[in-house]
Structure formats: C-alpha cells, structure tokens
C-alpha cells in the first residue's frame, strides 16, 4: 500500500458542487483539516447549471412570506412524505444561508428598494427564489468556490474520483481514489466522509445531467452498508429541450413559467387547467383570465391577488400532464408541448430575465424565444431519495459517514420544488460540515486502513485492462442501461416492466463484468466509464426495487396499476440496504408530524 500516494484529513468531502463546497467551508471553519475531492475541475459541478434560483423566505418581494409558508409548500409539494424536521430546518435556515452568500460576494438581482429580488416558481405560494437572471447556480458556485480557496485548511483534489469507501470495523476510515489525469491511485485516511456527489441522472437516456451524475455517493454509501431511502422518487423535470436530438433533455428553466410562460398543446389549448389536483384547487386560477391577471400583477411588481396559473403546479404534476397530452395525440411535432413566453413578455424582458435560455435556443435549436414557442418535454433531472441521514447532523447510518445535497434523502419527500435544491445545498451542506467536524473532533484513536482491502479494490478497478479479447464496450453497456431504465422505469411504471427491468439489470451486470478498455490509465474516459458503470447499476437496481415496493402513486412516482395515493404508504419510507451481496428492501416508518406543524401544513401560517 505504501506505493500509493496517501493523505490524511479530519474530514474528506466528496464532491465540490454547492453542498460539498459549503460542507468544506464549515468543517474548515471548525478547525478541521479538509480534503475536497471532485470528479471534474473546480466550479464545473452540476450546481453551475442551476438556473432559476434559490428558495428562501426572505420576504423581500412579498412580505406575506415566512418560513412557515415555505415549510408548508415544501411538505405539500413532497406529498407529505418529507422528513418534517429537515423541511423545518431547511425553511428556517435558508434565508440566513442566502444572506451569507451575499456577505461572501454573491450579487443577486435587486428589488427597487435595493434588496434581493425574488421570483415565482412552481409550488411556491409567494415569489421566493433569489436569482441572477437564469444563471443562479453559476453565481452560487463561484461565490462558494472563492470562499473555499481562501479557507485555510482545505486542500482541493480536482479531477479525482472516489472509487471505494474504506472502513475500520463499523466506522469510516478512508477512501480509495484515482486521479483522472494520471490514472494513479490515492489512499485517503480520514475520520469522517461527507458525501456531496449529487444525483443519478446518467442512469437514464433523456436527462439534464452531466457525465458525473452516476450515483457515486448513493452507491458508495450502499456498499459501505448505509441505508438508502426514497429511491423510487426520480424527478422528471417537465421542461427539457426535445429537438434537435443533440440537445434532447437539456433543461429549460422553470423560470420561463415563473416569468409568465404558458404551456400549450398542438391544438393551442392551455391544457394545464385540466390537470389541477384536488389538493391545490383553491390555490390555482381556473380561468385564463385570472391566470393572466396574476401575470400582469407580477410584472407590475404588485402583490398578486389573483390565483396562480396552473403552469406553476409542482413538477410531478406538470411532467405527467405533458406526457399524457403527448400520449393522447396532442403533442408537438417532436413529442413534447409548446412553451410560449414570446406572446407574454416583451423581447427585451425575455433577454434580460432569461438570457441563457435565449442563447441556448438561438444557438442550438435555431429558435428565437422572443418570437416563437419552445418545444419541451420531460427529462430526468433529480433524485429526491438518497442516503438516509439524521436531520440535524446529516449523519448516515454508518458511523463517520455524512451526506448532503442531492445525494441525501428526506427533505423533498415524493417531489422536490424548484429552487429547494439550491437552498438544500447551503443549509445541509453547512450542517454536514458541522456534523462531520464534531464527529472528527470526538474521534478517538487513528483511522486504520487494511492493506488487503485497498489492494483488492485496486485490482478490481484495474480489471478492465487485464481482460482480453471479445469483451464489452463500456459505452455500449452504459447506453443499454440508459435505454432500459427509460423504457421500464420511467414516468409511468408497471409491475411487469419493473420485473423485466430487474432481469435486464442482471444481464447488464454480467456484461459490465466483461468490459474491456483500450489504452492506458492516463485520462482514459473509457476506463472511467467502466468504473462508473458499477455505481449506475447499483442505483438503477435501488430505484427499480423501491419502485416495485411502493404500490401506489405519489408525487414523482406513478404506478399504472395503483393510480391513487394509498394512506398506508403515506407513513413509510422505502429503505434499501445491502445484506451480503443481496439488495434488500424494507419499509420504515416516518416520524409523525407534530401537531403544531400539522396545523401549519393544513393552512395556518
């Protein structure tokens, strides 16, 4: 083992998106030595792509807002399956986290009186998203990146991938990584690990995610024996680009609808009026006239008295509505819906508030969104479930392991509201950093790593170079997996399809075990893809098994045979864990909502 580069830290943070950066800043502020490891260059993580804004009840744009309303919106958006304590902490702490970013140099768009301007978004009762045009994520990641590199005690390892977590008995002791440029291994010794690796979108063909999103954190935690929960809840964002093929899946921000954009089918109907769920009927406009009045009020900068347009329903509802319109023959030419902002706002407003969208459609799809409608359809965007954590400290069920951001589960329940992911990163990134620091400080002894465990893991990672002749191409296996998941574990799920998926996963696993790569270890994407395959297969199986277990429809999870929500499933999480080499699924009770918060959810604010 001495032949490997080796480093020792109090806290190792895996991932340098918003959650990882925020965790690193906090752990360093607590006096810990911190290693921050990221798969790509610093500042390129998925947070950079977040567009619409960060949700926080600052009440600068509408003074009626408060943490209680934010809490209620989050719980109702999550179909009450959220961990209520996480939702409470999140709503209460988000404003301070956003203001803190400003103290670190972030510049959000302003209200006329010079405060942070907030924008409307799906499922949020009041304008709540602090934003910078449609590039909020870039502003956040650059601010956090700058704060991190000026935080003493943080070492950054760019283009470095964690391949295994290492344990000393039951507790975390380190991790094995490889450097992308040289392909060489690094052994990290550490008291605590914070997973901040994001999501699993690359398990699906049509997705809005980058190559990095291969479920690494979920799979690492699972392999280390930690519980995963809520993995059946995969968010299909209603508005991805659908044409040309080259851009299929790329995100179109919900901000388009927040700024007044409307959805129409091929007959020119605003079909969302037909899809308002019972639970939300009293909060949404039931005529175009009222919906239009709401837009006028918002544009004029007044507090909206009209009810909101149904285009601003939660993402699960809108995605399913578009899918149904397409299924019933009312889709756009390339199998989506029309999203029209051109007829609603002036060209100069569109270019000011949605500059990236304007550029994206202009350059990649030859569409001028100030003149014509966009064609949009559902795209795999986010996973609500993830590593099961303690709501206060973000500790996983394995000692020394923490998780924050998309890789963690609980906050979003069955469906996430737009804007709540960026606030999630900040609130729980900080808490995970604090939790890990406290754990590291209380740690007794030294983390011990078994040489044999490292050698075995290293040999497994190098196996694709050792195999000879007639092997599988890693890209082909990944593509087959993506096709399979889209076909059998997509928006509308059937028992038979899910069982077929499990059988197909067995075969894909066998193919993955025969993967052969060419070339050497130096910056070899073929080899890197082969390594990522293992994680993709693990999370795909977790999603499929959890989807089979939840025999109801709720939020983002839709079972064709069980079209309604079932009370019995309203009080349980589906938990996935490893038992030997087998993946097991159990139901775990959700902590009941205290009466005081129940009253908030039911309407008292």
């Amino acid at each position, binding site marked *: 083992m001495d032949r490997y580069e080796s480093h020792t830290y109090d806290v190792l943070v895996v991932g340098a998106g918003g959650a990882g950066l925020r965790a690193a800043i906090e752990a360093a502020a607590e006096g810990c030595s911190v290693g921050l490891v990221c798969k*790509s*260059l*610093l*500042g*390129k*993580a*998925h947070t*950079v*792509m977040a567009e619409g804004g960060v949700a926080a009840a600052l009440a600068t744009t509408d003074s009626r807002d408060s943490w209680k309303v934010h809490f209620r919106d989050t719980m109702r958006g999550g179909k009450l399956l959220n961990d209520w304590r996480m939702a409470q902490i999140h709503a209460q702490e988000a404003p301070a986290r956003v*203001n803190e970013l*400003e*103290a*670190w*140099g972030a*510049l959000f*768009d*302003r209200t006329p009186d*010079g*405060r*942070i*301007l907030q924008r409307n978004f799906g499922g949020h009762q009041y304008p709540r998203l602090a934003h*910078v045009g449609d*590039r909020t*994520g*870039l*502003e956040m990641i*650059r601010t956090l990146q*700058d704060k991190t*590199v*000026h935080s003493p005690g943080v070492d950054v390892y*760019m283009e470095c991938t964690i391949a295994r977590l290492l344990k000393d008995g039951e507790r975390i002791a380190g991790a094995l990584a490889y450097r992308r*440029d040289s392909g060489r291994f690094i052994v990290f010794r550490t008291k605590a690990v914070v997973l901040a690796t994001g999501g699993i979108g690359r398990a699906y063909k049509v997705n809005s995610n*980058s190559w*990095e999103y291969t479920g690494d954190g979920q799979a690492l935690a699972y392999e280390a024996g930690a519980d995963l929960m809520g993995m059946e809840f995969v968010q299909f964002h209603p508005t991805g680009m659908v*044409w*040309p*093929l*080259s*851009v299929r899946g*790329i*995100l179109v921000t919900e901000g388009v609808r927040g700024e007044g954009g409307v959805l129409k089918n091929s007959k020119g109907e605003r079909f969302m009026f037909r899809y308002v769920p019972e639970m939300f009927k009293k909060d949404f406009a039931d005529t175009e006239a009222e919906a239009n009045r709401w837009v006028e009020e918002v544009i004029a900068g007044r507090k909206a008295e009209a009810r909101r347009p149904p285009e601003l329903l939660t993402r699960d509802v809108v995605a399913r509505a578009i899918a149904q319109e397409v299924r019933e023959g009312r889709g756009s030419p390339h199998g989506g819906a029309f999203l029209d902002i051109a007829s609603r706002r002036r060209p100069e407003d569109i270019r000011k508030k949605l500059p*990236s969208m304007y550029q*994206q459609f202009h*350059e*990649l*799809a*030859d569409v001028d969104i100030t003149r014509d409608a966009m064609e949009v359809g559902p795209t795999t965007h986010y996973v609500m479930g993830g590593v099961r954590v303690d709501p206060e400290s973000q500790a996983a069920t394995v000692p020394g392991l923490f998780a924050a951001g998309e890789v963690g589960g609980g906050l979003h329940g069955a469906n996430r509201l737009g804007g709540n992911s960026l606030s999630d990163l900040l609130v729980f990134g900080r808490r995970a950093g604090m939790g890990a620091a406290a754990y590291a400080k209380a740690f007794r002894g030294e983390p011990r790593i078994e040489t044999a465990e490292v050698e075995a893991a290293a040999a497994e990672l190098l196996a694709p170079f050792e195999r000879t002749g007639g092997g599988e*191409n*890693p*890209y*082909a296996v990944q*593509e087959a997996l993506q096709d399979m998941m889209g076909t059998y574990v997509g928006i509308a799920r059937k028992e038979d399809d899910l069982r077929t998926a499990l059988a197909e996963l067995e075969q894909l696993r066998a193919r993955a075990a025969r993967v052969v790569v*060419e*070339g*050497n270890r*130096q*910056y070899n*994407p*073929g*080899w890197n893809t082969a390594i990522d395959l293992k994680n993709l297969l693990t999370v795909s199986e977790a999603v499929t098994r959890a989807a089979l277990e939840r025999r109801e429809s709720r939020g983002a999870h839709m079972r064709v045979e069980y079209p309604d929500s079932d009370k019995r499933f309203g009080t349980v999480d589906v938990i996935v864990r490893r038992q030997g080499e087998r993946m097991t699924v159990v139901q775990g009770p959700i902590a009941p909502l205290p009466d005081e918060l129940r009253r908030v959810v039911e309407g008292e604010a």
Partner: protein
Amino acid sequence: MDALLRIFRGDREAGAFRDYPVPQHEGMVVLDAVHWVQAHLASDLACRWNCKAGRCGSCSAEVNGRPRLMCMTRMDQFPPDQPITIAPMKAFPVIKDLVTDVSWNYEVNKRIPPFQPKPPEADGTWRMQQADIDRVQEFRKCIECFLCQDVCHVLRDHERTDAFAGPRFLVRIASLEMHPLDVASRSRYLKDQAGIGYCNITKCCTEVCPESIHITDNAIIPLKERVVDDFYDPVRRVWRWITGRGAPA
C-alpha cells in the same frame, strides 16, 4: 453524409492528428461528434465536458483553429466536404488529446486579494441598486472556459504566465474592484502581480468569449485607468506628496 473529424491524439511529448468519420444528424454539435468517436472508434479519446449547454466552460478546444466551446459549435456551419480539425488549447500544456493542464489558472485565482465587504446595514444585509450591479454582473457571467487565456498573445505566444494573470483574471479582479460592497484595493496587485501593463488591448479575448463579456472595454481598460490614476497621475502624485499619503496598497 459522414463528417470527417481530424482530432489531435497524443500528449505533451508526442502526438499527431488522426481522422475519424462520424455520421451526422440535424443540430449536431462538435462535442456530439467527439462523443460518437469515443463510443465507437476510440474509447480512450480524452476530452473534458460537463453541461453540454454552454454553462460550465469545460469543453474548450480549437476547432478549425478557432478557440471555441465544442458543445456550442454546430457542425452544419462547416463545409461538408472538408475535415473539421479539433486541437487542444495551445496556451496550456497538453495532458492527453484534447485535455490540457489548466491548473495554473486556479493558482492565479488563489492569489487575488479576496472580496472584502463594507459593514452591513443594521439588519445585517446590504442595499444595492440594480443599476449599480449590472456592470459587475456582466463579469460574473464568466464560465471559466479559459478561451480568453488561450487566445491572449501574452500567454499563448510569449508564455508570460510568470508575469501576467490573463484576461480571465482581470475580469475576475474587475468583478471585485467594481463590486458596490467591496472596500479592498487591488491596484498594486494589478500593477505588480497581475501584470496589467502587458495587455496591449488587441481585444482577441473579447472576440472569443462565449458569454460575450466585453473583456477589454468594460474590464481591462477601466482597470488600467485605475492603475494609471493611482500610480502615474502627476496631480495625484503631488497631492500625495503634500498630504504625506503613500501610494495605494
């Protein structure tokens, strides 16, 4: 009809361009074609990418000699009967194929004196007018693709990474210097460490910026003026002599 990609394969010691035929489809971008080559012809072809939507600035390369983001470069703009050449950024050492060692940029960034805000209002937050932050928001659009660094002759041809921070970090400094809340001065840093005097305003950086930031006009020239005012203005020099105040930090 297939397109012909002519891609640099190799590392910093040796390398050559190799040809790969790629089937084309409507709306295809150069990054799609590179991915097709990876999946079908050369699984170890190295390139960086993340968002594939012009947001992250990872897939910078030189396409037919021009620094570009591969994800925002449409194939149908090139003549179909000629090969499309893809080379790594020239200003940085090649690691492998289309991937270059850009770590120097991160070192430069670390040395820039960080944001230092003035005290907040009584409620702990600040008031700023949109009009006052518009010009700084322009600089903050930068996605760190480093294409401006790549094309800058001070870095590309004269290799003065020892003396010049490059356009990207002059933009970064401008975003701090013109930030309505910032109270630090980076004049001496600009003059002595960032080497702003090396820029002779050829505007090549502005031309290649995928975010259309007016790097030269809005960032570099005002910073140059700031340095001139602080260090070379004879009236101010006399004033400093009279008041006994030294040059700025």
